[in-house]
């Protein structure tokens, strides 16, 4: 595997305009008398249409980084520009709006609403956008078509396989046409075959829709498929690797030292 080590702070995405810009971002948690520095002075640029994998041990700060990127959390200091807009210091409701407009979330546990059809699950972000039922339905069906689940629109999550559930969740993330997808171990609950299907789908979206994908994983074979791999450790981005030749299909991880 040809992986190139980039220097810290070095621009990785070349000419691509940035969708994410973090500058001097710190996040501190106060637990009792102790202050935990979860992120320390993080600078990061991610260009439009990039596929970035984030790896790191638990407690490394990668979750904190993802929470800040997802506007679920606010940095203690530093600046976060999302699509050129400063979003770091926004109010709770403004951040909800940013999430609704600009970010699609994909979770490890799918997080579909139980006893609710796939279609209604996909519609959910549009409900908070205040769209009419008809409009929601049309957009949700389109998104379900994109993930190849049009025929399962009226199935409930418990009637779908794990891979299908995650594809419904991806459709829900896509339905608002966000420029940024954040995926937190999206294949963590899936077997290797469906993992391949879901990763193929995500890669296709990155290529065809020019969506930016930031994906947390601890599996090297997943990280290997990304164009760029960020390693977070002790609250800092320790390594920023550019993968020049992203493999077109999943392969055994013999060439990389397995993370687990």
């Amino acid at each position, binding site marked *: 595997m040809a992986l190139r080590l980039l220097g810290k702070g070095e621009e990785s995405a070349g000419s691509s305009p940035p969708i994410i810009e973090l500058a001097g971002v710190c996040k501190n948690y106060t637990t009792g008398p102790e202050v935990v520095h979860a992120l320390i002075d993080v600078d990061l640029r991610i260009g439009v249409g990039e596929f970035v994998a984030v790896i790191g041990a638990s407690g490394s700060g990668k979750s904190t980084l993802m929470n800040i990127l997802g506007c679920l959390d606010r940095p203690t200091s530093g600046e976060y520009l999302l699509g050129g807009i400063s979003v770091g210091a926004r109010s709770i409701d403004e951040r909800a709006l940013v999430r609704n407009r600009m970010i699609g979330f994909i979770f490890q546990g799918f*997080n579909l609403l139980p006893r609710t059809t796939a279609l209604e699950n996909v519609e959910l972000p549009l409900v908070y956008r205040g769209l009419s039922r008809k409009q929601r339905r049309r957009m949700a069906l389109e998104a379900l078509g994109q993930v190849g689940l049009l025929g399962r629109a009226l199935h409930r999550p418990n009637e779908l396989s794990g891979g299908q559930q995650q594809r419904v969740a991806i459709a829900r993330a896509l339905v608002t046409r966000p420029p940024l997808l954040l995926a937190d171990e999206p294949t963590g609950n899936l077997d290797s075959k469906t993992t391949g299907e879901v990763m193929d789908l995500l890669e296709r979206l990155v290529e065809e829709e020019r969506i930016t994908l930031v994906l947390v994983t601890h599996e090297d074979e997943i990280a290997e498929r990304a164009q760029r791999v960020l390693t977070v450790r002790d609250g800092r981005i320790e390594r920023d690797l550019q993968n020049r030749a992203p493999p077109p299909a999943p392969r055994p991880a013999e060439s990389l030292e397995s993370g687990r």
Partner: protein
Amino acid sequence: MSAFVESLRLALRSVLRSGLRSTLTVLGILIGIAAVVTVVALGESARGQVAAQIQSLGSNLIYVFNGEGEGQSRAGERAGHRLMVADAEAIRREVPGLRAITVYSSTTTQVVSDFETASIDVVGADQDYATVRGYAIESGRDLSRSEVDAKAKVCLIGASAAEKLFGKSDPVGYSVRIGRHRFEIIGLLSRKGQSPFGSDQDNRLVMPIGGWHARVFPGHERKVDIIIASAPDSASVEGLRNQMDQVMLEQHHISSSGKRDFRLLTQDSFRKSEEEIYQVLSLVLISVAAISLFVGGVGVMNIMLVNVTERRREIGTRLAVGARQQDIRWQFLAEAITLTCFGGVAGLALAIGGLHILERQLGWSLALPLTAVGAALGTSVVLGIAFGLWPAQRAARLDPIEALRYE
């Protein structure tokens, strides 16, 4: 607007989904609302009914009863009666301000017509009886003074008694037999319906008191059950009552500080006692309502808090895809309101059933007024807000990161 409708739809679905849990949760609300509706229905219609029934006795009446005991003693106890026809005559003579006055004695006995035999209240009274009690003469004529003085064998007949004895035909001109005496019917009384004491005021014959004493209920010459006087207007009732008291004291040779062997009551005192019954009933129902609604409300709050905890992941997901705090708050508030309204509607149904039973027991016609329906639904919504706000607030204030982490 669409999010609003959406959360109502979601709320309804979520409440219906857990049918048993919802039903148990809202049981308190159900009982409370039923009590509220009953109170309002009673307040709206029963009060008016009671007033109407009391009014049906006549207007501005002053009663003189025997002794300290209950006014209408039964036949066997008449030996202790102290009221005499002469007392009524003295009052008529010495209290000229009265509109009318009559004696009243009654017994229930078999009355025979050419067609039927029936059990009828046979009343001995004066020529002013119909006037005092506010009966109109539907057909024929009223008793005359001379007939009363002469103990004539004539009588007036009430509407129910006439139906029993003569069917649909006009009874005036026919005669009835009591024991071995025949009485000619000279007048038909207008229909009054039930008295506030629950008796049928139309199942009666009214005849001169002298004749009643002589032919219907012999052996207690000149003693009467009640003397009933009618004041010309409500303002004069109290003064006339006191004058009647004076006359009665003189008649019975009792000093004004002595122990009376008669009781004077005005119509107002009946109204007061009826109102007391109503107030006690209302108080009991309102207490039941308040306690049930509170307990029910706490139950709803409890189940909503459980809901919020159980659905933290859902809340986290909703927040992640762009729900604002107010969206989450409204969603859970809508669920609480749906839950309490569910209880409210069930309580309304229970109350309608309960009112039917009360109607039969009390003999009141209890239409369910719109205000009661409004009160039920209004109370439900207010309860939903009052007891749902805190859980909804907790849901809205969840940190999305914490909520998403919840398994």
